[in-house]
């Protein structure tokens, strides 16, 4: 059902522009990687702190207040460059299960991160004290890290559509 939509996007003037100006796709992908690295660095600092293996110099609420804004900034740039790449190569994107898996996981991890940062901001004292910290803290850290790694993996595999069809 998405194939006709993708075919239509591919014929629009904007898509043709992105396809024909040779530096647009590599530049957009480069900015995409810089942003995902910034996001992943910020996420890793928070999650390692929740797991008790890093950033011990700051409380969880300090770290969340510092790092979460970078997560949202990077995510905004990722959505923008990702949209450019989708407009440029819509067919490749929409036929790949990796694309839909990636989008689904981004929604899940974004909602998780939003709820987590809201909880930390409204109950800073509870999160900062190891004895009163919600038991879900470590589970959040593990699930969030795994989801981001899976999102990066799917993102890389969007570039290898043959992988999903060459089998069997």
């Amino acid at each position, binding site marked *: 059902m998405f194939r006709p939509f993708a075919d239509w996007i591919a014929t629009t003037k904007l898509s043709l522009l992105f396809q024909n100006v040779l530096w647009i*796709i*590599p*530049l957009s*992908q*480069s900015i995409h*990687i*810089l942003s*995902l*690295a*910034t*996001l*992943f*660095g*910020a996420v*890793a*600092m928070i999650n*390692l702190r929740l797991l008790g293996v*890093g*950033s*011990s*110099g*700051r409380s969880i609420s*300090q770290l969340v207040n*510092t*790092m979460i804004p*970078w997560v949202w900034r990077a995510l905004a740039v990722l959505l923008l460059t990702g949209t450019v790449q989708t407009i440029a190569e819509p067919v490749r994107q929409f036929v790949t299960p990796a694309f839909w898996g990636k989008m689904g996981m981004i929604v899940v991890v974004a909602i998780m991160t939003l709820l987590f940062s809201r909880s930390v901001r409204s109950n800073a004292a509870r999160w900062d004290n190891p004895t009163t910290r919600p038991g879900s803290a470590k589970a959040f850290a593990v699930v969030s890290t795994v989801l981001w*790694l899976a999102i*990066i*993996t799917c993102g*890389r*595999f969007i*570039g*290898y559509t043959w*992988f999903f069809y*060459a089998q069997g």
Partner: protein
Amino acid sequence: MYEFLGKIQDLGLSQAVRGDLGYEWLFPIVETFHVFFLALVFGSIVMVDLRLLGLTSRDSLVSRLSREVLPWTWVAFILAACSGTMLFMSKAQTYFYNREFDLKFLFMFLAGINMMVFHFGIYRKVGSWDSTFPTPAAARVAGAVSLLCWSLVIVFGRWIGFTT
């Protein structure tokens, strides 16, 4: 040199990564791990550079943040180098004579020089500016040069894939 690179390409590991031995999925898998590790390298360096520029983590001492973050950077850097070497081996002759590949390593070299100038320069007196703002000009320059060099490493790294 070309013959030597050919010998590297003929190694079993190179053939496997290239997909010649029936593991077509290995090249994208190694690439994916390369992205994981480069994300940790760049993401962690960004947080230190932004602190040197005074733009974030102002509640942390520079020395403390460096001690907490940079060991992770080094572990991730070694893993990125290992996965990158595997990618290189699979098409050694192609990558060795690639302009973007040269530029990537030029900027990695410059990032290394910048790191040493910083480490053996203004960082030796970090005790006197650990929590002061604005940070010293030399520290801000080091942070900005580092951000620029590492960004270009990633840009040229991505570009290699469009030229080979």
